[in-house]
């Protein structure tokens, strides 16, 4: 819980919360605009192009120019669309993207067992808009709600390409949510709390979950997050070559801009979630002699944004490098590889954790769990093989020969 709200709630508390909301929203908007520019520049560099360079220095105002242009464009609505849902969908995509960011701690001193509490206008508080006790569940819930934005946008457009795009989107996002949730579960096992603040605090002193959970959940999470964001190579929701624009084909003007904004906002917030879960959020080495504002705000903010930037770079790098998955490959990767892997890893780490708590030999417990996982994996593999073989056996040449003889 945020210590700000532990006492009585007066005017100053409300004002501080409002200030945090405004600052977080403005900061995120600016961040998203910077991200759009960053992505376009970076992809251009990776493709031997120059990228936007006309609007402002290094083209940094390009996003603003595009936004203004989109704002003044005609707002079209297909005749056969469902008017209410059609208008609602962009907001359903945008609002969850912002809400996820509200639970991300972006600053605060977490070194030496401190819990990131800072003093703001004489009140003790956390550097996040809200710190609900079910913090990370809230993140998962919001990313599920975001599916509705995409799905309803495609459905309400009354047009076939958006519909196909949204069918793909809902299947993809629901599938990868499972892998996402299972890799988060591993983190929760180590943190022992759902609160994002607690998760960051539990990683203090370089006990970052990326290596505490032995890398695998991190890799699974990054892949599943890319799929959840519908970013390349999992962008077959939008698949320009097949579906025109996917779910937002029929959207124009500011409604399209909202989808665009939501997509990039999701990228930023998902990177922030990865940083929070696996890289210790704003924690990092902080010299104890430094003044309070450096300890509480400056250094943690620098650490947080540096880590964030790494993941934004990685997401753009994915886009510049990897070709799009085919739909069956996407489902294979999700269901037959990532989910079993995340689940198996979760079981092994759980066994070790339980063994430690109960005073058993963690190595033996881990080995037994690993054995169970390997056996389960082999069973899964053979069942997949059997299912695959069944199709090919439908017309068996040997049977045909036997019938002929």
């Amino acid at each position, binding site marked *: 819980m945020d210590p700000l709200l532990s006492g009585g709630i007066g005017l100053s508390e409300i004002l501080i919360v409002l200030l945090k909301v405004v600052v977080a929203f403005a900061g995120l908007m600016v961040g998203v605009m910077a991200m759009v520019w960053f992505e376009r520049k*970076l992809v251009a*560099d*990776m493709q031997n192009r*120059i990228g936007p360079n006309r609007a402002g220095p290094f083209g940094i105002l390009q996003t603003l120019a595009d936004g203004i242009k989109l704002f003044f464009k005609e707002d079209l609505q297909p005749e056969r669309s469902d008017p209410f849902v059609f208008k609602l969908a962009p907001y359903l995509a945008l609002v969850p993207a912002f809400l996820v960011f509200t639970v991300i701690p972006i600053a605060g001193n977490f070194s030496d067992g401190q819990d990131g509490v800072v003093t703001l206008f004489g009140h003790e508080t956390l550097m996040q808009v809200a710190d609900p006790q079910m913090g990370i569940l809230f993140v998962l819930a919001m990313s599920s709600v975001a599916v509705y934005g995409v799905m309803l946008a495609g459905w309400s457009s009354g047009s076939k390409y958006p519909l196909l795009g949204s069918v793909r989107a809902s299947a993809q996002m629901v599938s990868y949510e499972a892998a996402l949730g299972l890799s988060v579960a591993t983190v929760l096992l180590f943190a022992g709390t759902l609160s994002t603040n607690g998760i960051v605090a539990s990683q203090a002193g370089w006990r970052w979950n990326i290596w505490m959970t032995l890398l695998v959940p991190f890799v699974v999470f990054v892949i599943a997050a890319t799929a959840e964001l519908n970013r390349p190579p999992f962008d077959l929701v939008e698949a320009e070559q097949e579906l025109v624009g996917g779910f937002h084909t029929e959207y124009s003007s500011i409604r399209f801009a909202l989808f665009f904004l939501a997509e990039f906002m999701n990228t930023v917030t998902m990177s922030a979630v990865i940083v929070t879960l696996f890289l210790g959020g704003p924690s990092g080495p902080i010299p104890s002699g430094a003044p309070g504002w450096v300890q509480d705000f400056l250094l943690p903010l620098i650490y947080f944004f540096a880590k964030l930037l790494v993941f934004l770079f990685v997401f753009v790098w994915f886009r510049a*490098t990897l070709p799009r998955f085919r739909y069956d490959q996407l489902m294979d990767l999700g269901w037959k590889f990532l989910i079993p892997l995340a689940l198996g890893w979760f079981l092994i780490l759980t066994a070790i954790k339980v063994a430690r708590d109960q005073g058993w030999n963690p190595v033996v417990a881990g080995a037994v769990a690993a054995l169970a996982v390997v056996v389960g994996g082999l069973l899964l593999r053979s069942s997949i093989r059997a299912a695959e073989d069944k199709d090919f056996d439908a017309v068996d040449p040997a049977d045909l020969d036997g019938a002929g003889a």
Partner: protein
Amino acid sequence: MGYLDGFLVTFKKWAGTRTDTGRRVTTQYPEEVRPKPERFHGRHVLNRYEDGMEKCIGCELCAGVCPARCIYVRGRDNDPADPTSPGERYGFVYEINYLRCIHCDLCVEACPTEAITETKLFEFAFTNRADAIYTKDELLVGDDGRPQQLPWENWDGGFDPAADTSGWMRATAPAGSAEFEGIVAWAGELGYGVRSPELGQHAPDPSDHDDGHGHDDHDAHGGHH
């Protein structure tokens, strides 16, 4: 690393932006103009002979061959007292609709008198349909043999005979000179200057070159009367 190699490739391109690995291929177009290819097809001109006569004889072959049907020609008999072209007839209406033209250069190939050729000018964005239809007055070169600049055309580079004439080649005499028959040569297509030879071609002796007074031009390649 198998399929992870791709990450290294893109990373190198990004990291080596200032080096040869990541050299950018994009040019900053309006400020930085890439040299045009030898045989670039741009807007047309209607050429004239040195004595000011129009080369067009109104035969309508260009209009006939045009796949986009963008050329409209009407011929008319020359006034014997004051002929417009050296032949019997001249093109009295000549219009090209640039909303349809695909710049295939077939009209240039079809023209028996080299009356219509293409320049390398492509920066002629017009803002209304009337401007899109270039009339004979607009297409005809001036007395100096150079194309006229129309108000909406961007001529920032100016016109240079070697650089701006299209690289169209005839396998026949460029100016009616018998010496050129059967030789691939390069005409001063815009009515002035002579193109420099392309790779693999040799410049003919200038003394062989008949200046082409042109009155026999429409007469196949039959030399002088």
